[in-house]
Each structure stands twice: as structure tokens, then as C-alpha cells.
């Protein structure tokens, strides 16, 4: 009788490999995910980095301390500010250089502005993933306004090399504070528009809720930091945990959500952006007078005493660390960046993509804020 029990033939499968990137409209950055797909469900995903590997850590060993600044900021093209900051912090730590109070304030203002710029870029990328170029276009426009400020400050749009051992490269120009405020007011004035068109859009909710869930414990297991962790309910921000700059002197709070899905990650990013803007206003109010930088020794003869350090800060994507070694020479002996996207892009992403729909690959990737250049270095 068993033979009669055979109903329809069971589903047979066939392996299908899809390449999400590097040449793919849904890919931001030069990165590739090999998707093993059944139907439109991802059975397993394999991150395939290395398309942007330039061997920074080797190149840094070949250049002297100051020459490394142009390299360092190019590790992450989306937010070079925090890269400069982490390298400066490490060099200051090794060489024992002090930073004046005003310098720290300007650094924090710069970092928060570049955080907002980076988040706006992320918003562009994310809304583009959902095919929502409208909000993306707005965000990109507002990012450009911030880049204009940077351009006035340093002359460069993207790579500024503003932060410098011992402070910043130069003091704020005249009237700059007013222009910062005006720009931030302009961006802030559009927040209701963003809310109405994007953050309260039902389609966005449908696309993002329950997608790519990374729970709190999971995220901690996999070395997640930044929004990944905060969206899962863990209040973890280096600016609070291990304060640098003047973050312990201003009043601000860490925003968290509980669900750990793409939606909550994006909402955490939104809240952080608003918080950063508020923080810039507070910093601008409290900014003391005085010198903005201490002098650095002659760069061509600068030797830093033997030693090693590990410094970390909160970039817009999570914990950014630098392990820097000096053997007492003119060049670093070894530098190794701990970039936030590294665990996010190589470990968390593979996990988060499991069992999701291929429609959501880019969605999840960008919500995790995976940035290819800082993985590859």
C-alpha cells in the first residue's frame, strides 16, 4: 500500500549561483556577494571582498608619519574624517602630543558633521536599494551642503585631511559657525519631509520590517558594533564607553531600538543623525577660545619613540580601531585598522542574508552599512 502513498514528486532543487556585485546596480562600493539561491530565497551567501584591496598596511610601512595622512583618509571614502581622527589619536598617543581644548571641540564638530554626511550618503544608498531615488536625491543634495562646508574649511570636498596630530590643520574661518548653523537649519527643516515621504512610508515599513534580523546576542557573538548593536537594543557607543575628544563634556544620548531588523537599523541611523545635529549646535555654543592646534615637529625628520597602541572611536558605522606600532623610526612599523564593516560585511552579512529573499540583498547590506573599501583596505 505504501506505493499508493506517493503523492506529487517532492521538490527537487538545482543550485543557482547569483553574483550580487561587483558590477551591479544594487551594489554600493566594489564588493561582491555570491548568493546561493533556491527560487528567490537565499540558501547561503558568501561575501567576496578584496576588489578594493590596495595593501594600505603595507604602503603605510613605506611612508613616513605625515605622508600617511593622504593614505589613511582613503581607507574609507565615505567618511574620511574618522579615519584621520583615529590615526591622529594613535600618533598622538605614541608621540605624546597634547591637543588644545578648542582643537578637540573643532574635531568633534568636524566629526559629527562628517557623521551626518556619511549617514546622508547611507540614506541615499539605502533608498536607492528600495528603488526610492527621490529621497536619495534629497539626501545626496543635503550631503553636498555639508561637503561645501568642508570645502570652505579645507579646500577638499571629500578628502579633507583636516584633523592633524595636535589638533586640526587650521582654525575655523570667520563666519563659519554661522554658516554651519544655517546649513544645519536647512537640513533640519526638511526632516518632516523625510519623515513623511520615507520614514513613515508604509511601503518602506513593509520592505524593512522583519528583514535581516540580527539579535542582540547574535550581534555580540559576531563582533557587531554601531547600529547593528544599537538596533538590537545594546547601548554601545565608543563615544560613551571609551570617550575621546569632548564627547564626555556635552550632553547627548545613545539611541537604541529593540527589533534588530533593517527597519530599526535605519531608524537608529535617522535618530543618530538628528542627535548629531543637536550635538553640533551644543558644541558650537560651548566652543572655547584659544589655539586650535599644537605644533608638530618637522615632518621630514619626525621620529616617534618605540611603542604600540590600540585606539578606537565611533565612526558612523561602528567601532573603528587602529593598532599602530612604532619601532622608533620615521615610519610606522605596523598599522592594522579594525574597521566596523569588517565583521559586519564578512560575518554578520552572511548570517543576516540566510533565508532572505534576493530582493532584500541590497536592502540588508546597506542597512548593515557595509562599506567595501574599509573591509578591503
Amino acid at each position, binding site marked *: 500500500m505504501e506505493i499508493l502513498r506517493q503523492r506529487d514528486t517532492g521538490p527537487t532543487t538545482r543550485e543557482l549561483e547569483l553574483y550580487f556585485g561587483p558590477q551591479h546596480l544594487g551594489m554600493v562600493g566594489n564588493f561582491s556577494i555570491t548568493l546561493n539561491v533556491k527560487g528567490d530565497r537565499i540558501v547561503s551567501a558568501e561575501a567576496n571582498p578584496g576588489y578594493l584591496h590596495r595593501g594600505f598596511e603595507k604602503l603605510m610601512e613605506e611612508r613616513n608619519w605625515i605622508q600617511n595622512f593622504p593614505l589613511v583618509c582613503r581607507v574609507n571614502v565615505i567618511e574620511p574624517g574618522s579615519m584621520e581622527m583615529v590615526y591622529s589619536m594613535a600618533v598622538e598617543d605614541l608621540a605624546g602630543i597634547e591637543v588644545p581644548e578648542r582643537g578637540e571641540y573643532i574635531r568633534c564638530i568636524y566629526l559629527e558633521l562628517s557623521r551626518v554626511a556619511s549617514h546622508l550618503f547611507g540614506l541615499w544608498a539605502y533608498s536607492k536599494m528600495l528603488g526610492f531615488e527621490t529621497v536619495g536625491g534629497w539626501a545626496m543634495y543635503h550631503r553636498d551642503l555639508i561637503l561645501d562646508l568642508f570645502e570652505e574649511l579645507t579646500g577638499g570636498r571629500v578628502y579633507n585631511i583636516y584633523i592633524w596630530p595636535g589638533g586640526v590643520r587650521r582654525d575655523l574661518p570667520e563666519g563659519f559657525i554661522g554658516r554651519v548653523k544655517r546649513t544645519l537649519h536647512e537640513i533640519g527643516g526638511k526632516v518632516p519631509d523625510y519623515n513623511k515621504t520615507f520614514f513613515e512610508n508604509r511601503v518602506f515599513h513593509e520592505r524593512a520590517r522583519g528583514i535581516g534580523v540580527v539579535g542582540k546576542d547574535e550581534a555580540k*557573538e559576531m*563582533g557587531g*558594533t554601531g547600529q547593528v*548593536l544599537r538596533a538590537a537594543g545594546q547601548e554601545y557607543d565608543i563615544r560613551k564607553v571609551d570617550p575621546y575628544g569632548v564627547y564626555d563634556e556635552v550632553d547627548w544620548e545613545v539611541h537604541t531600538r529593540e527589533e534588530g531588523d533593517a527597519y530599526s537599523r535605519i531608524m537608529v541611523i535617522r535618530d543618530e543623525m538628528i542627535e548629531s545635529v543637536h550635538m553640533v549646535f551644543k558644541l558650537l555654543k560651548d566652543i572655547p577660545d584659544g589655539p586650535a592646534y599644537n605644533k608638530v615637529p618637522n615632518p621630514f625628520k619626525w621620529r616617534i619613540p618605540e611603542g604600540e597602541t*590600540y585606539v578606537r572611536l565611533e565612526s558612523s558605522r561602528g567601532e573603528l*580601531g587602529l593598532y599602530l606600532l612604532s619601532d622608533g623610526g620615521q615610519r610606522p612599523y605596523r598599522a592594522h585598522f*579594525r574597521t566596523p564593516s569588517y565583521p559586519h560585511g564578512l*560575518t554578520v552579512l552572511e548570517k543576516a542574508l540566510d533565508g532572505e529573499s534576493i530582493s532584500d540583498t541590497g536592502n540588508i547590506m546597506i542597512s548593515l552599512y557595509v562599506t567595501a573599501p574599509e573591509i578591503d583596505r
Partner: protein
Amino acid sequence: MSKVGEEITAHFPEINTHRIDEKRVEVNTDKGYLLSLLNFLKDGGYDHLGLISCVDRMEDGVLQLVYVLSRYAQDESVPGPDPTLVVKIPLSREEPTIVSSMGVFINAEPYERELYEMFGIDFTGHPRLDPLFLERDYDIPPLRKDFDTRRYVTEEFETIPPVED
């Protein structure tokens, strides 16, 4: 001030720790202790593996593995920020092998893959020890000190003839 250094020494008398500054504690050990030490630290609250790095100390003939560990949750028993742990393990430069720490920290996986291809360190028990970043096979792993990147570029890339002028 944290007391993690003392705790380690109390638990593993052979391991010496020393405090670099208030933010960092250095732990020197050898590769036999790796897993038990990592497990101990993870249970003790140091549950965030920040980085696995490696330093090529060519003149000593040593590849020095560096594990950077920190805490996700603030240690409530001591005031102030918790120090970061820098665990250092020397490996022989000729035959660098060490057990994979993936069993303790999942995110060790890409770091170990990277060190495998950049320094040639063999992590036993690693499930996919295949190239992560690099397209080519380099005779000497590129981040070792004896790999001369400038000579490599001149010999490999500059010798390719231009197609047109």
C-alpha cells in the same frame, strides 16, 4: 581601575600581564594557552573580539599574533572605562601554525583568513581557509617584512609592455 590583569595572573600563573596605560592591558602568552585564555576572558566579560592582527618581527624570527579584546557591557564593579586587552602570542616565522579561535569568537573567521593570506599563518580547524582579498599567489605573503612591494611592482607590472604609446 580594572583588575582584569590580576584576575588573569591569578587564573593562569604562567601568563604575565602588564598595564601599558589606563586604557590598555598587555597580556603575553604562548599559543598553548590561546583557547583557554580566550574562553576565560569571554566568560569574564571580555566578549568583544575587536581585532586579530599580526606583527612580523623579522629580526626576532617571530610572527606576533595580537588579539584585541574589549567589553560590550561596562564593568559595574569598577569605575571608569574598562581597559582594552591586547593579547600577544609569538609564533615561529618558519612554520606559523596556531589553533583557530573560531570556536570562541565567530568573527575571528575573516581575520584568520586574512592573516592566512597576508602572513601565511596556518590556523588549524578553520573551515574555509581560502583566499579572501588577493587574486594572485604571492611567493612571500605580502605583509611580511621581507616582501618588497616596490620591487614586486617594478618586476611584475612595469615589465608589461604598453600596447600603444
